[in-house]
């Protein structure tokens, strides 16, 4: 408990500091004094300054914190329920499934109003659910769920849904899909308040679902039989954790795009410092994921000013070597 509180305090402090810092950087030429003026309401803030800080930078920071937190907690959930340290929304193909759902919803004309944002999330969840179930069935059919089988099944399902997205984009009028290609690379954009609200609510629901199973996910590391003998209904725990993780993935993908590897890097970095207890990891991963994605997004916004990199590129550049490291390290293995 004390370790959890200390970790949360440290992460919250770092996140707050970075969030404030991120308000001061961006492609718009805005002086530090102008940002302070907007935030305090005193001095000489122009309307343009206000729009840049309050309607562009602030919502984008909020989106980064929510998406990073959602993806990291989804990673903890998937790793716990599959007992596989490499499980993660993008590696498992669940992100691609969610992305296919989002593109399909956009083909039907859904945009960013509050109801439409909900519809978008529902489509993303349906896609994530189908992809996750497909991965499970393929891997289970190939003889249990060994580490590598699950990852291979995830890659295959990911490729399938990526191709399906390409088909949709090819047959639909490109203009109707707006910035879909940019979004597909994983791109944080300033969200309008209703979309941000839906994003926050769905993330909270997914977080609550995974956190509620976190103690039971610990016991699941004993194996299904070991967990059952301690009174844990293993199948129900897996179903609920999966629902939560899929919901978090769906929300992040719907509002920020299929950003990869956050759910791999953040939980493992935290596991190395805080230990394997999911009750500590879930809340820490939410803050840590937000912190990581905000840092990555701030880099993406500033590295090639005045242009921007999609944040997904940054996380993939960090995540790919990390994945190889985990694949090779035996100590990071959760279970055989």
């Amino acid at each position, binding site marked *: 408990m004390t370790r959890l509180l200390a970790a949360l305090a440290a992460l919250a402090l770092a996140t707050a500091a970075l969030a404030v810092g991120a308000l001061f950087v961006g492609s718009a030429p805005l002086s530090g004094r102008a940002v302070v003026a907007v935030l305090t309401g005193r001095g000489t803030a122009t309307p343009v300054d206000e729009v840049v800080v309050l309607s562009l930078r602030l919502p984008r920071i909020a989106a980064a914190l929510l998406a990073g937190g959602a993806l990291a907690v989804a990673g903890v959930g998937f790793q716990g329920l599959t007992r596989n340290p490499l499980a993660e929304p993008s590696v498992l193909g669940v992100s691609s499934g969610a992305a296919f759902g989002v593109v399909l919803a956009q083909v039907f004309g859904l945009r960013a109003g509050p109801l439409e944002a909900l519809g978008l999330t529902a489509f993303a969840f349906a896609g994530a659910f189908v992809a996750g179930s497909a991965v499970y069935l393929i891997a289970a059919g190939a003889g249990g769920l060994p580490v590598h089988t699950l990852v291979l099944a995830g890659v295959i399902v990911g490729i399938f849904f990526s191709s399906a997205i390409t088909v949709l984009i090819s047959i639909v009028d490109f203009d109707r899909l707006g910035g879909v290609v940019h979004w597909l690379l994983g791109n944080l954009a300033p969200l309008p308040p209703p979309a941000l609200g839906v994003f926050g609510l769905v993330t909270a629901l997914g977080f609550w679902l995974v956190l509620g199973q976190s103690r039971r996910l610990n016991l699941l590391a004993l194996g299904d039989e070991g967990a059952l*003998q301690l009174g844990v209904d293993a199948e129900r725990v897996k179903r609920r954790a999966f629902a939560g993780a899929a919901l978090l993935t769906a929300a992040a993908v719907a509002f920020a795009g299929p950003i990869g590897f956050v759910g791999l890097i953040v939980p493992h970095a935290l596991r190395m410092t805080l230990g394997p207890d999911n009750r500590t990891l879930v809340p820490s991963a939410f803050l840590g994921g937000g912190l990581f994605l905000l840092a990555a997004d701030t880099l993406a916004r500033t590295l090639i000013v005045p242009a921007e990199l999609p944040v997904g590129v940054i996380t993939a550049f960090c995540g790919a070597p990390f994945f190889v490291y985990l694949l090779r390290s035996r100590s990071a293995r959760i279970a055989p």
Partner: protein
Amino acid sequence: MTPLVEVREVEFAYPSAGGTVARRPFAIGALSVTVEDGEIFGVIGPNASGKTTLIRLLSRVLVPARGEILIAGRPLGTLARAAVARDIAVVPQDVPRGFPYTVEELVLMGRYPHSPRRLFDSDDDREHAREALGATGVLDLRTERLDRLSGGERQRVMLARALAQRPRLLVLDEPTAHLDLRHQVECVGLLRRLNRESGLGIVLVSHDLNMAAEICDRLLLLDRGAAVGVGTPKVVLTEATLEAVYGCRIAVGTHSATGRPTVQLIWPP
């Protein structure tokens, strides 16, 4: 008096792979047996005789196809999973490879059935865990990771987890399988002490007939899912029965110190 465990005409068959006719129709067939309070009860038999299936049925990992199992007079099938785990604690042979938790974290998992809705461990849980770690003599190891311990130490830690469950019945799966001689002796001593001091009922499944003969009040000899003999070691462990069940030549003698039966193989020339 109600027996601690009552197995009534229990049958169980595993679903056969591929949907074809099962090679072995029943893993357990029409088994009836009782375990009394405070008794050390041994389950022995060759491979595939149904020993492990019996553990799974007792801990409700599997549900009987026919018949029922009662724990202290209550049918297992009517109890919630956590309630079963408050009555029956299973000590497995080992934890999964690479299990990342510390000794204390593992033992605290034994407290789950007492508060399945709570997210965090209470001071009471920690007190029970400390007590259990003390009872099996591994309190010093509590901050160690499981995969850094020796086989004998891991065995004691898993026993501590089972004690933290505060069960009426302890079920042990091959408790001495991975232990050297000294640790076997220590393990048996520990089980006897727990049984004497707290009146804990113990069911132990083992391939080690000599250990079972020494420690158990009564034995159940299983063969292909059926009870071949139930009774004191002297009654069950006879040359004729053992040779018929195991299909090899066996000499049964008497332990010079304790008077219990000893079982020796007669190796083929």
